[in-house]
């Protein structure tokens, strides 16, 4: 199944502080490549870390970027890249 891409609308949702569920499934293909990233968001680092762990364990090849914090919306976020090896 092809993964769902994060759209500009998704990004806007995050900017407005809404919770966004994981939006990717396991990647396809056999060569090393970086697919369109997924953004996970949460209202605390603990909640975000929990989401990240859950997402990575469910999606082989998923690697996390750095935790970010939006001081206006007070939302923590992290970018997950799905990488096929």
């Amino acid at each position, binding site marked *: 199944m092809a993964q769902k891409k994060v759209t500009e609308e998704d990004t806007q949702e995050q900017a407005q502080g809404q919770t966004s569920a994981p939006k990717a499934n396991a990647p396809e293909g056999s060569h090393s490549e970086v697919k369109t990233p997924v953004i996970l968001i949460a209202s605390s680092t603990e909640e975000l870390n929990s989401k990240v762990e859950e997402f990575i364990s469910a999606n082989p090849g998923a690697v996390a970027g750095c935790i970010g*914090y939006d001081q206006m919306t007070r939302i923590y976020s992290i970018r997950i890249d799905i990488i096929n090896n």
Partner: protein
Amino acid sequence: MPNLKGQNFRVFIDDGEHRKVVAQSTNCTVNYTANIEDASHKDITGMAALPSIVSKGCTIQVDSLDVSDIGAILTKIKTGTPFDLIWEETSTTDNQTPVVTDTSLLPRHAKAYLNDATFTFNDRENSAKNLQFTITGAIDDLADQNPLTVITPSINFTKGQYVRLFLGYGVLGASAVIAAGKSLSLHTSVSLQESTTKDTTGNWQVQTPTGISYDISTSALMRSGETITSTVAGYTVNDLVELYEADEVLNWKIANVGGDNNRTASSTIVSGRAIVTSLQLNGPNRQDATYNATLNGVGDYTVGA
């Protein structure tokens, strides 16, 4: 005619499907260079040089406060494939939409290797990345091969204290955090070999990646031991000195952290093995004693866990 402001001269990356501006960029520099040889000879009187162009190249530097894509960038570096870069004038409306008029700066495109990348995570500061690309092959005007994706402006930053360096050796993995850490940076370098031959048309330099190396630099306060109680062990300067003296190959990881004292590792961003190649102990009068350490990567790094 108004001056072109720096925010309206930007670098884009085309991922093969879309082209996007380098988000949260703070600076960019494009350096065109020409290598010359002196073609003066005995038939020409006087002492003046007669330079002629041997080859041309270009490097592009981009600085940004967006480090969320560190995993993607480190992976791309490992694959040894070039990026598609575009640099051009952008609209004052959103600083992202290209402007193409008779008088605007013409868009340019080239394939380029990311031959130098530094990610910096300093305590309390917004983290940053500094990227330097070297183009391979010709610069052309094929800037709009794929549609532009405009990025929603964001003030989402990574504070440096939420990304930390963990070390360990042997079966312990990388389980201990650098105690009282102040700064951290990961620097990767790709060596390039100029590989034009007579089969190569034009005089643009063609580059081939030949190797990857990386180093990690960190600084922290010197302490004679742990001063906090934590379930996560901390590495002190003593530990690093001993590891340096023992020529120990360390396990390391850079991870997102949370919890008490920002010591609980969550997702691993990148990990690998390294040796301590530099230790500097500093004792400024009346101020906190500090140390700086540099670790050089041994073998490949692993993106993610």
